[in-house]
Structure formats: structure tokens, C-alpha cells
């Protein structure tokens, strides 16, 4: 069946990209939590989460991001979100998440955004 996967890529500019795939619900949220916790443990606070291949998200999945964003930002980093399908964006949008998170079209835009913040 479907399942859920997180693939981690480390870009050369010290940014970590997490590519989500499949179905993010109360069953699989723990996997995302583990992946984000690993970033924190390794002091990788500049995180891009790519949603391109994510087919589904429930509030359990949304909650994971809420659980980490504060910690990440306090350490000078951020969680930026990219490449959401309309279906997924709809849920984020409905809950007003765009007010709290940077939601961008592409990973490049997210990386660019990190570079800008650096300069400031």
C-alpha cells in the first residue's frame, strides 16, 4: 500500500532538505518527528521540507511541525515548506499556517530565502 517516507539531503550551503512521500497521518507522524529530531540533534536548524510527493496530511502531521518550529527558530533556523500540491496546501491554508510558515514554490526559492536572512 502507501506508507510514508522521509528522504534527507544535505545541500552544500548547510541546508537540510527533507523530502516527504506518501501519507502523513497519526501512524506515520512519528517518522517525520524522528527525522526532524535528528536535524535538531545534529544542529541542522535550516530545514526545507519538500511536500511534492506527499499525498495526504492529517492534523497529526501538521502537529509535528508545530512541535519543532519554536525550537528551530530559537536556534536561528527555520522550517520552510515547498512544492505543496493544491490538496495539501488547502489544509495548511484553511488553518492559517501560511501566517506562521514560509510556504514556497520550489526548494531553490527556500534556499534563496535562507541566504537572504543570512545577509541581514
Amino acid at each position, binding site marked *: 500500500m502507501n506508507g510514508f517516507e522521509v528522504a534527507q539531503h544535505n545541500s552544500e550551503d548547510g541546508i537540510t532538505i527533507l523530502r516527504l512521500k506518501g*501519507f502523513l497521518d497519526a501512524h506515520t507522524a512519528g517518522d517525520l518527528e524522528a527525522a526532524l529530531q535528528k536535524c535538531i540533534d545534529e544542529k541542522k536548524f535550516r530545514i526545507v521540507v519538500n511536500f511534492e510527493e506527499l499525498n*495526504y496530511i492529517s*492534523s497529526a502531521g501538521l*502537529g*509535528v511541525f*508545530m*512541535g519543532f518550529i519554536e525550537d528551530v527558530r530559537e536556534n536561528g533556523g527555520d522550517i520552510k515548506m515547498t512544492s505543496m500540491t493544491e490538496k495539501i496546501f*488547502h489544509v495548511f491554508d484553511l488553518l492559517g499556517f501560511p501566517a*506562521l510558515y514560509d510556504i514556497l514554490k520550489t526548494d531553490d526559492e527556500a534556499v534563496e530565502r535562507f541566504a537572504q536572512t543570512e545577509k541581514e
Partner: protein
Amino acid sequence: MAKKVKTYQLKVPSSTDQLEIIREFVTGVARKVGFREDELNKIELAVDEASTNVVKHAYAYDDRKPIEIQLRVEPDRFVIQITDKGKGFKPEQVKKPDMKEYLAKMRVGGLGIYLMKTMMDEVEFSIDPGRKNRVRMVKYITPETVHPTRKVS
């Protein structure tokens, strides 16, 4: 002639690894009803949230307990009932989350019932702790929610 009502029932162990089977069952029936893709997505999410609550709150992750999903396809509405025999709760005391405050405080949970209410046309709880706690959710069958090829009665 009496209008035809079709009923469906699914009973699975109460654990999060059943959510996928529950979602596929409900969307399978809802797709047959003729609901549009975006309505299917809403129904899927509402059912997931309600079932997750049973697993988490009603039974505290005890997978020997059953979760029961009942579907009724009536001429003008799709009715979903999710039943548990768990500890129950006071739905009237669950506040609608203030999304501004929610986001400001970066809370982790508390969105499930809000999403259910946003996704469905009717959401109603009936609670009898340890015996029969049930959430009843309704999606109307209208020209807006179903495919045009499906004739709405």
C-alpha cells in the same frame, strides 16, 4: 416507492495502522456515491481525524478494542458514524480553537474536531462513556458536491 438507503459497516482494531484501511473504505464508498475529488478529500480527512481520536483518546492506543465505522448512503446525504466504547468526553467543553492564538502559541494538537466540523456539513456527538460514544458526520449530496453525471434525487 421508498427511497433506497444503502448501509456499510467496517470494524477494525483500534490502532493508527488501521487509519489507511479506514480511509480507503470510506473514500471507496464515497467515490461510488459520486462525490467530487475535493469532497472526497474532505470526507477522508474528517474520518481520519475522528478515527484518530478514538485510537488516541477513547482507547488510549489499546488495539484490542474495536473501532466501528458505519456509512449510510441516503438519497440526499452521506452519513458517517464512528463509534467507540471508550472513556468518552464532553464535546461541549471542547472549544473551537482560536487559530490566531493557536498559531501564536504553536500548540501541537486540538485541531481534529475543528477540521471535522470544517470538512463536513453536520458533526454531532452522542456520548455514553464505556458503552457507546458516537460521532455522526454528514455530507450533503448536492449538485455542488457530486459529479454532474450523477443524478441528484
